[in-house]
């Protein structure tokens, strides 16, 4: 039993490191590699882009191709031909032909494994939080973890941006709204809350702000509530700054050359181009959703005839992803930016009655790129149907630990839920060592 004083003292020490964290970007020293005594590989990435292939992308039809099967005859196997890549011994599907020549910038984790396949939400949650749901606590997403641990790079940019639909698995969990995302669902407009409405001209905005200033000043003089009010008043200024021209110009993709915009391709490509611009403005973590349902109805959830037009999704991904990698390289940002291509699970080699594929989580691929890792490696080998690991499995905690280490975050550090409950940042994950040496 701890007595009263002991507990309070303990808590004070425990939270001392994290007390000052604000969305504006100060670093939590206790969470960082440099201040910890634990021994773990220290990556040098500053940013992370996670590309989310919602629905469960088929590893066997993308990054882990095998002998061709036949959907009609129900012969298990790949749906497409395989092609060689820049890395001897690594093949990918024929529709990844632009990524293939630059496969030496990738690392393919081909034996990622978990056990949730019956429901997308639960699997999406596993892949975003690295843990099963608990009931006593809501775990933060990888985006929230990374941006909480490292903060934004620049106080004029939010640390965590989501380009896709908001959902709870992408949320901050017990870390609270300060570790939450700012989201937008298309590149045609910036995030609503930081975008001035079209009908508010610059002149009108200045008029508003000028009048608000007087009202705020008077209230500050009159208000009771001391620091509570002052702090909020200060955050009003911060918000107005963020919705000002500097950050908002990031969303003006028209500033980029047409040629580059064309190289990125579709709306998804434009999302990746925007992501590069956001990183340059100081954003730490971006999740980009590849939700092109209308191409085949179901997106990457290729049951039944969702399979028929799957190649269009793959080609779209191929073009945009390869453009991003080369563009980051040109900007000398690839080594500082970890790209993660993930999905809630993979799909089996066998076909369903409608010619599509079911869900499979025993062994599927997560592709990493850049991030200052030892690129061009393949981690784990799958069996002839890309259904089981032949050598090693990469658990979700291991994947999370790898991402943390790449971002320079100690994967063994503890965060504090509800003020005083220690929660390890990953669920006992071990980083994949060979990516770091």
């Amino acid at each position: 039993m701890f007595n009263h004083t002991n507990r309070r003292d303990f808590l004070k020490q425990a939270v001392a490191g994290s007390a000052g964290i604000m969305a504006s970007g100060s670093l939590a020293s206790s969470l960082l590699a440099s201040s910890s005594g634990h021994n773990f590989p220290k990556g040098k990435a500053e940013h992370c882009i996670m590309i989310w292939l919602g629905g469960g992308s088929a590893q066997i039809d993308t990054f882990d191709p095998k002998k061709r099967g036949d959907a009609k005859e129900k012969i298990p196997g790949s749906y497409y031909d395989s092609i060689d890549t820049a890395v001897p011994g690594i093949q990918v599907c024929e529709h990844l032909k632009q990524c293939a020549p630059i496969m030496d910038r990738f690392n393919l984790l081909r034996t990622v494994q978990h056990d949730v396949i019956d429901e997308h939400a639960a699997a999406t949650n596993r892949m975003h939080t690295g843990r099963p749901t608990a009931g006593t606590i809501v775990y933060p997403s990888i985006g929230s973890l990374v941006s909480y641990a490292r903060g934004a790079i620049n106080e004029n940019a939010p640390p965590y941006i989501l380009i896709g639909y908001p959902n709870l698995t992408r949320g901050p969990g017990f870390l609270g709204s300060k570790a939450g995302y700012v989201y937008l669902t298309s590149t045609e407009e910036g995030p609503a809350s930081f975008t001035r409405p079209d009908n508010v001209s610059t002149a009108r905005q200045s008029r508003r702000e000028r009048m608000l200033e007087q009202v705020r000043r008077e209230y500050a003089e009159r208000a009771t509530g001391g620091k509570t009010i002052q702090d909020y008043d200060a955050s009003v200024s911060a918000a107005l700054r963020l919705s000002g021209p500097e950050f908002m110009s990031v969303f003006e993709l028209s500033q980029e050359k047409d040629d580059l915009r064309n190289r990125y391709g579709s709306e998804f490509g434009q999302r990746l181009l925007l992501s590069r611009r956001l990183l340059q403005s100081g954003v730490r973590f971006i999740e980009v959703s590849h939700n092109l349902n209308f191409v085949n109805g179901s997106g990457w959830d290729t049951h039944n005839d969702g399979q028929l037009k799957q190649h269009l999704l793959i080609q779209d991904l191929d073009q945009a992803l390869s453009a991003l990698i080369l563009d980051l390289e040109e900007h000398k940002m690839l080594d500082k930016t970890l790209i993660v291509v993930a999905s809630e699970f993979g799909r089996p080699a066998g076909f369903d009655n409608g010619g599509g594929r079911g869900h499979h989580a025993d062994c599927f691929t997560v592709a990493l790129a850049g991030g200052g890792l030892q690129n061009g490696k393949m981690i784990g080998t799958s069996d002839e149907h890309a259904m089981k690991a032949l050598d090693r499995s990469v658990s979700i905690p291991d994947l999370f630990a790898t991402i943390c280490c790449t971002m320079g975050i100690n994967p063994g550090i503890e965060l504090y839920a509800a003020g005083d409950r220690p929660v390890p940042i990953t669920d006992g994950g071990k980083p994949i060592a060979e990516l770091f040496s």
Partner: protein
Amino acid sequence: MRTVTSVRTSRSVSFAVGAVAFTLLGGLEWLPTALANKPSPEKSTSDVDDYELRIQQDAPVAYWRFTGSPNEPVNNSAVQGDTRLQLIPHQKSFQPVAGPVSPEFPRFSQSNTAVRLQEPQSYFKLSDPGDNSSLDFDNGDEITLEAWVNPVRQEGVPYLIGKGRLRAGKDNQNYALRLQNKGGGMAVGFLFKSRGEKADWHRWTSNDIVTIGDGWHHVALTYKFGEPKSIAAYIDGVLTRGRWDMGGETTNPPVVDNDDVWIGSGQQAVASSSYQGELDEVAIYRKSLTTKQVQSHYEYVRPKFFLQNEAVPASGVLVQIYEGLSDRKSWTFRPPTFSESFHAEHFGLLAVPKKYNEKGIHVDRSNPFLMVLTGKAVLPKGEHRLLIRSRNSARLSMDGEQLAETKFHSLGGDNGPVFEVDRSLAPNIRPLHRGDNEAVVTVQGDGQEHVFEVQAFVGGNNRRQEVGEFGLYLATPDGDFKLLGSEKDYWLTDAAWLDYVEDQEQWTRDTNADRRHTAETKEKEYWARRHAWAKEIVNEQEKPAVPSTGPEYQGNNWIDRFIGAKLEAAGTKPGPVIDDTSFLRRLSLDTTGRMPTLEEIETFLNDPPKTRRSLAIERMLNAPEWADHWVSYWQDVLAENPNIINPTLNNTGPFRFWIYESFQDNKPFDQFATELVMMEGSLYYGGPAGFSMASQNDAPMAAKAHILGEAFLGVQMTCARCHDAPFHDVKQRDLFSMAAMLNRKELTLPKTSTVPGGSNSLLIEITLNPGDSIPPEWAFDKFSEDNNIDSMLRNDNDSRERTALLLTSPKSQRFAPVFVNRLWTRYLGYGFVEKPEDWEYAQPSHPELLTALSQEFATNGYNIKHLARLIFESEAYQREATDGANVDPEVGYDFARTIKRRLTAEQLVDSMFACAGKDFDADEMCIDIDSGRTVNLSLNLGRLTKSWQFASLSNERDRPSLDLPYASPFVTTLESFGWRSSRQDPLSTRATDLTPMQPAEVANGLLARRITTLSDDGELTQAALDAETVEEFINTAYRRFLTRLPTDSELQQFKALLDEDFSQRVVQNPKPVHRDRVVRSLVAWTNHLHPDATTVKLQMKDEVQQGDLPTNKLAPDWRERAEDMIWVIMNSPEFMFVP
């Protein structure tokens, strides 16, 4: 204009045998369910069981009648005096029930009994007498298996009769007669394992089904082993086809050995193989009965069914509910049971009022049920069209003649089409809602009154019991449709729809409240006794004396004397009392959860200054939004966590609706807590049973114990879920003992509820291991002694009820004080105890006051409003706020001032819309808008009008077609201010972290844009049009948003802004703002994979992005300046805080 609703007590169905007048009002036919229905009047009233003689004629080898006690061995009636083929009850938990009886089943006597099997472990065993016994069947042998069943709905494939395959690893099935969940009922199945080299399973399943919920059915199956085509099954005497759907046909012989026969279960008695329901007249024959023979075993006389004889009202509509309807898409069914009736205002309903049990708890009806609306209406002269719309099939009749019938609900899957919007029926008709069906009929009106009747299926096929946009409408050949039977005109047009919906929702709420109060009359007697008991117990306790203080510290009531005495002793002067309008604003936010309306401000200011605060308190306590404001709080504390798609994230049912009604009723708090712990009623529609659910959680009752511990005991058990708590005196066993009490039997510690790999921390101790069994035990005697409380238990043996009583007992050291502290924290910004959910180290700052308030609470029937009134009246509540920078958690707070509070997310959003005088227009919290999915997979949380009604958007699939575009801006704003879309764990105090997202949402967010746009639908727009002077408009805006009037300098600033062109601001003959709104009922789960669904949702999103279109009634330039003022006022930090 509301009719008073009367609730009739339930009466049994009236049966008419022979020639009783057919009083069915509609033109409905109630057809016989079986072709073999030939009533035998001479036998129908007989008390001799003709059935037994009939069976004996056909000479079965074994025949069990279940006429004696089913918990004693059951004799074989095939052979008199035979004791060899005796059934031995495995567990003696059988309920004797009435079996099929005459006159409905004329072959049976009126006293025939049967047996009910309700637990997997309850079945009958029959020992095989040995080699080549009469129970062994091999190739060439003929078999008939027969039983009478009255099943309940269940998953799996339950056994009626099975030989072999009883133990793990034994595949020796000689034969089995089984049922299998299919469509709306249960198919009949046969199963055996063949022997030899190609040994395999062979399963046959019938095409037709046994319906569920409508009484006894006869099933029989005949087969000659070795001849696969010989198989025949009969349901109610009717031959049904089927197919060998596993293993295929075979001529191979079956496995034959000396294993036992079980009746009612198989396969180690796992739940999915164990029959649930009633069983009678089980027989085994060594021959194939002929079709004629089988038919002669089933005889059924359909009772003449007529509607409950109630007068057709002169105005309005009589609604009758019948339950126990067979679950199939057919108007041919056995008579259902009358359940209840009430009056409605007209022939339109958007929801059927709820059913409450005698405790006032919302319970489910049978699925489906039948709804019958009867009323009189005048049919105007000339040609007219009658339109009936309904989610599931409905029939319309006039004066007893059937006129129209709509189709049965049939949508499913996920890739259906997006139907074209069809407005061809009438010029302005509201398009048919996806999932609804309609039928139109043309009639010649005579200007006379007629009796109309609509009968409708509600629910069925495990779908939600929704009626869609149900209604009966009347129109001229080319006019618009108007609701029939209504005093108020409700047109079936988009323009008029919202008004109708709001009226209907109000009617449903009122009707539900009426019905609930009537239902719980007896229950209230119990609670009156409980509260008398509580008063007696508390009156014996020592009462803290109210301290006397100097005049400066007297305050308004005795609460202030306790606070004042401490302040006086410390020499601290209390802070000043806030001014009247600030008080009203604070009070309104604390009671209704939103800022006061103009009318409320005016009433307040018109009251005499001396009494206006008390009068306001009284009014605000009785405001309907009192309930709304409380729901949010308990959603957090009780981890209410519904999910609208495939609940797999530790989700609960939507018990928010029970919370709402509880506070609508100002339910005594001990009753509230008790109902929560008992977890009874409706699981998916909002009853307290929703609390029992914890999807994909392997220890749901541990999760519930954890929540209840925090909510009512102030015991923090988060850590105890997996190990003994390091900073708390709570062992993991304590939590699981309580969980076992809730579970009503022992619990096994699951593997996940421990620390993987054992503890590697000095802080964590592990004293339980996975697999350990924990019995039900009350581990918190130190907070609430299990002593002398039994007189208040209604069921001594129910450990769950005992838990409820122990948690809420007046003897509890924690129940009342923990709540008092919660209330105090909520209203003053800081508690007597710092953490409402964790009293481990509690050293209350004002122990005597806490005790006095707790005693006051307990002796006043745990009436929350009573307690709240005392606090609101106190000067302590009415004092100015401070930031609390000098609060020392070690010694607590002195309450010389209140603590400044930022608006909660819900207060903010509800206030914004109240200030602008706009509707949410957020659509409904549902993706399955056509009820195409089963109840367990998709919830409908209803139309969104208050912030507490939102939930996670659940678009983890990232599909544009699953987006809820109208709701999503709300969720964005709510989440940035600390609202949780997912509440997997309980939370008593939300974090109030500051992020730039928060002011950014108020400055630019899509919701904020709607508030600051002067559009045609806003009350603020009307105020701008109506104002006679600039000052008047500025004052109105200030009152609406900040409750107060502007200061001089504020007034000057905005006068300077708005003076110019004020007199020219109103546009003469403005062009109406026209907008083609996207039809919202086009996309559901059932078509979300169709590309058109994405297109529609993206159009909706565009509409949301555009926001509210500005009015043309105000000159654009002036309007923009006025909008700028609103923007400024709303973005002032003053708006964001409780004064």
